């Protein structure tokens, strides 16, 4: 049985479909990134799993049971954790732990461990109102872990942070990942790649790719011809309407050309270059990077 099973998930606001028939599952111990540009529907999916937003279609099962009765097994870090600015960090953890019915002496012990883990032990008695963004994020992670959830869900845990704070949180998540099952959303591919083994790429409410990073690269990677030459724009202009060509991207004096068939494409391109007497400086066949796959998919959907 999967830890989290999402099937045919759908969300409509009026006639506007924010999430369309999304299917995926998460197994115990996995770290899964929910990846997509801003406004793709990531937060909506997360909020439906947490039963903050109601589903208009589909099913979400946690350990095979309906999720709205199971949310005590989920730890949640919101996108913009605000909490109560008049509470101290420790008081917030006591409050959150209390809401999860943890016994007081076990709670105290766990709070001490967590504060140490997220590095807030020294400021535990300061008001949350005085915390920086990164500190609030850490406190958010601590409160999400306080009841030792089966599944830790984080909505854009590093997006709002400066590079240094982002690095810190990513390192912290690497430690947490060893013990927990994690689902987290991000619009930055690099974070997903660094942290997770599985990815869900979504755009406009639709799931585009679902699988491990290896799989995604193997199955969807396409070769690209890189052609470098001066005055390239005229030449590429002529290529636009050819059947064989899938897309052309021009940056400076280099063009990235995707073709439908590698062999035919290569021959055709080379002959065309000769015919046009293009003074090429570089002609290279490379494989797409993960980022290029991601961008291509998001654009074409």
């Amino acid at each position, binding site marked *: 049985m999967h830890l989290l099973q999402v099937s045919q998930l759908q969300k409509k606001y009026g006639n506007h479909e924010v999430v369309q028939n999304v299917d995926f599952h998460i197994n115990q111990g996995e770290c899964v990134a929910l990846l997509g540009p801003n406004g793709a529907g990531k937060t909506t999916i997360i*909020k439906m799993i*947490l*039963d*903050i*937003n*109601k589903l208009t279609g589909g099913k979400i099962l946690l350990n095979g049971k309906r999720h709205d009765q199971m*949310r*005590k097994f*989920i730890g*949640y870090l*919101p*996108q*913009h*954790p*605000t*909490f*109560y600015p*008049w*509470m101290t960090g420790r*008081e917030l953890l006591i*409050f*959150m732990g*209390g*809401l*999860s*019915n943890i*016994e*007081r002496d076990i709670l105290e012990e766990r709070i001490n461990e967590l504060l140490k883990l997220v590095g807030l032990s020294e400021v535990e008695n300061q008001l949350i109102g005085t915390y920086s963004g990164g500190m609030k994020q850490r406190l958010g992670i601590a409160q999400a872990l306080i009841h030792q959830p089966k599944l830790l869900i984080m909505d854009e845990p590093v997006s709002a942070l400066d590079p240094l704070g982002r690095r810190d949180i990513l390192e912290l998540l690497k430690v947490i990942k060893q013990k927990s099952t994690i689902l987290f959303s991000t619009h930055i591919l690099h974070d997903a790649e660094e942290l997770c083994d599985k990815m869900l790429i979504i755009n406009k409410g639709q799931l585009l790719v679902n699988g491990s990073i290896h799989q995604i690269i193997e199955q969807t990677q396409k070769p690209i011809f890189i052609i470098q030459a001066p005055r390239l724009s005229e030449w590429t202009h002529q290529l636009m309407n050819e059947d064989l060509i899938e897309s052309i991207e021009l940056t400076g004096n280099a063009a990235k050309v995707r073709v439908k068939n590698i062999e035919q494409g290569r021959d055709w391109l080379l002959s065309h270059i000769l015919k046009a007497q293009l003074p090429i400086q570089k002609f290279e066949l490379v494989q797409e990077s993960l980022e290029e796959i991601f961008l291509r998919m998001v654009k074409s959907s």
Partner: protein
Amino acid sequence: MNRFTVLLQKEWLDAKRSYKLLWLPVVFMFLGILQPLSSFYLPEILKMAGGLPDGITITLPELTASEVLASALTDQFDQLGLIVIVMATMGIIASDKNNGMLAFILTRNTTLVEYLLSKLVGHAVMIAGSIFLGFLTAVFYTFYLYQAVSVARIAAGLGVYYIWCLFMLTFVIAIGALLSRTPAIALLSIFVLIFLKTITLLEGGFQILNPAHLSNQAVSIITSGNVLPHFFITMTVSVLLIVFCLIFATSYLSRKELPSM
């Protein structure tokens, strides 16, 4: 420790840190002092202000001690006091709702009923303490300046008056669940509550259905020791309205998609 206790402790901490626990009772103590003092010294204050022109004499009614206490309820608590209660409670639901904290708390398997009850009980205790202390100062001043009044009557009157205060509180909670802007919550609540209070001045049978009429009942208990007719009907209606406000707030919030962080 159950979740309700945890939520209640949070309310208490909030009240301490926001100084509500300080200023709410202090305001009511001011109001309690104001009435007996101004009633007693009004003639002298008038004289100090220049006296009355020749030929005009107004006869200030000789107030009894119990009348002074009663007017502390109707002239102070029901006016400035009402506004202060609304101001102290206007944000209790809306601020949690707007900044996503309510949605967030609910992801912890907390129920809306537990949450709303913690708000209700927390503030009901605070308001009870405040009107008690406020009336206590009024009683001290009245006993000192005028004379003693039956303590049993005062306690009974204040108890009845408190039900009207509870209605104010639950009404603001219900409006707070419905609307999200605190100024709108405050204005609508004050408008409706003052309206209910004002129509108690009119004669008519519908008064028995008006929770604000409990304030008149309290005055009657303090001044005469007797309740006005239909006391129990008004009491029952008020309690039912309180329950209705809470059920409304719960069902409205549970059906709505709450803003989240």
